[in-house]
C-alpha cells in the first residue's frame, strides 16, 4: 500500500494505492489520525488505485469518520472501484460515507 497526501486550501486529498489489509492499515490509521489531530475540516480519500480492502481497512475509515464527526469534519470517499463499492454496500457503509465519482465532485459538494 502507498499513501500520498496533498494539502489544498479547502481540503486534503489522501490517495491510496494497492491493498489495505491487516498489514497495511496501521499506516493508514496513523495518517488519518494525524489529520484528525489537526482538526482537518475536509478529508477526501481517493480510492481509485485500491485493489483490496479488508475489515481492518474499513474499521480504520469508520474510526476516522467518527473522530471527525466529533469536530464536524468531513470524510469523503472518491473514485471508489467497483469491487470496493460492492464491499461498502455489503457493509452498509455506502450509507455512512459520502461517496463521490471524482475528487472535484467531492471538493465542490
Amino acid at each position, binding site marked *: 500500500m502507498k499513501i500520498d497526501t496533498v494539502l489544498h486550501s479547502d481540503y486534503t486529498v489522501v490517495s491510496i494505492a494497492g491493498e489495505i489489509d491487516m498489514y497495511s492499515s496501521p499506516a493508514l490509521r496513523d495518517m488519518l489520525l494525524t489529520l484528525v489531530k489537526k482538526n482537518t475540516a475536509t478529508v477526501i480519500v481517493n480510492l481509485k488505485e485500491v485493489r483490496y480492502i479488508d*475489515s481492518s481497512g474499513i*474499521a480504520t475509515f469508520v474510526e476516522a469518520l467518527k473522530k471527525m464527526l466529533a469536530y464536524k469534519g468531513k470524510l469523503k470517499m472518491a473514485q471508489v472501484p467497483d469491487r470496493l463499492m460492492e464491499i461498502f454496500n455489503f457493509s*452498509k*457503509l455506502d450509507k*455512512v460515507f459520502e461517496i463521490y465519482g471524482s475528487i472535484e465532485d467531492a471538493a465542490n459538494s
Partner: protein
Amino acid sequence: MAIGTNPIVITIPSHPRYLSVVRAAAHLAAEICGMGTSGAEDIKHAVDEACSNVIKYAYKCDITRTITIKFEDTLKGFQVTIEDSGCKANIDDIKIRELDEVRPGGLGIHFIKKAFNTVVFDKKKRNGNRLILTRYRNTDEAAISKQK
C-alpha cells in the same frame, strides 16, 4: 483441483505481512476450482479475514507462530481448512453484530459468511483450531445470502 486430488497447502508465519501470499493463493485456487471471478474474490477476502482473526485472537498477535491453509475440491464444493496452534476459539465469543450498527470492527465474520455456505470449527482438533470453510458448487450469491 479435480475432486479427490491432492490439495494445495500453504503455511505462513503468523505475521500480517504474509497475508498477501495467502490471498493470492486463495484467489487462484478458487479460480482453478471453477468458483468464478466474483466467487474467487469473495473467497480470497474471506480467507484473509479468517487468517487475520487467527493472528489477532488465536495467537494474540504473536508473530512467531504458523498458520496452515489447505484448499481442496471436494464433493461438497470448494473447501478451505485453516489450522493454528493457538488459543482455542470460544464460539460464544464470536459475536456477530448487526451490519446496521456502524462501528469499527466486527465485519470479518460477515465477509467469511458471505463467501462460504458453512463455517465450522472442527471439534476433533485437540490443540489449536481447525476452521473448515465450504462453498458449495454452483451456489450463486443469492442462495448464500438467503440462508443467513
